[in-house]
């Protein structure tokens, strides 16, 4: 009854205020990037949630898979020395 196939999906990223990073907000369907931006504004920016919006074709996103969450992130798991609190400072030092 909708007598057409579905428009492609676009992932929406919004920047809340000037200087902040863009964050994923959700997605919209639209026939092209221009309409995707307008739809994203109407769906994710009705209450001043954004000063800037990116839209990216959902199909352009490559994601790591939940199945290999273990092996994929393994290289980070045994390197606690990357955090400063790994290192004990001698007593009596106020600030480092």
């Amino acid at each position: 009854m909708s007598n057409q196939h579905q428009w492609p999906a676009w992932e929406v990223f919004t920047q809340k205020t000037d200087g902040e990073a863009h964050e994923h907000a959700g997605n919209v369907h639209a026939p092209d990037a221009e309409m995707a931006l307008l739809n994203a504004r109407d769906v994710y920016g009705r209450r001043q949630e954004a000063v800037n919006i990116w839209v990216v074709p959902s199909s352009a996103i490559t994601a790591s898979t939940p199945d290999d969450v273990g092996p994929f992130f393994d290289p980070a798991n045994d390197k606690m020395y990357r955090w400063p609190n790994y290192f004990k400072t001698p007593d009596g030092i106020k600030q480092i």
Partner: protein
Amino acid sequence: MNQQIIQEDDIRREEEFNARIAAGKTIEPKDWMPERYRRQLLRMMSQHAHSEVVGMLPEGNWLTRAPSLMRKAVLLAKIQDEAGHGLYIYSGAETLGTDRSEMIDQLLSGKAKYSSIFNYPTLNWADMGAIGWLVDGAAIVNQTVLAKCSYGPYARAMVRICKEENFHNKQGYQIMAVLMRGTKAQQEMAQDAMNRWWWPSLMMFGPPDKDSPNSGDLMRWKVKLQSNDDLRQRFIDRTVPQAEAIGLRIPDDKLKWNPQTRHYEFGEINWEEFNNVIRGNGPCNKLRLKQRRDAHAEGNWVREAAAAYAAKHARA
């Protein structure tokens, strides 16, 4: 042999899945999930999305008749939010592997269900107050709990929606409060709306726990975290004092505060009416479907124009 290995594999995966649910982990679209979990969730999410969309119709009825420009602007903003709610939930439901267009086809063909509350007519302006206050109020009670459900895309859509619902709830309550401070005729109008919307609002939480066929699975999977009866009780407990504060009477002779349980006791809900509306015999079932189909058909030229524009620029 192969068949047996696949089956054993599924049993192991289902055990892992149940353990993740029990540990309070969130399930994401690419995670393995039992087919029944996917199906039940898709049914629930698509019905929820349809309800947001159909829910625009009873209120749209009053857009041209709102008593002031400000009231009109507020109502329009509220209705636009509901369209957004439909979009959030459809896109959450799409992650389960069904296109939005397919879900919309099911709605337009009359195959899909939506909340039966929207099959009641909006007869006067106070109905806009009663809907925002009671219907959106009931939705808030429901959705606040769903925001903690086990399926990530659904939970995240609910967080977003809950932020907007408080506006809907408050603007509705304010409409009622203003009418109750008005003339006798205005007060009667508000009470009349209250009388018509109270019981259907209680029905929004679904059948009583003892007759709720899908609840067991949904509770076990933490899609539902509280039972229909518990949610209904919570709604009543928070709404009765609000009614009293503005002088509205709850149309239930059996309603009374129980100081022992610290809950309100209430009268029998007419489940026959509920089932009758679900079966398609409510006052507005046919009208709503027709309105939705007409709106879809009348918007077709916009979709066609957008697609033609996109195609032209893709070629250039």
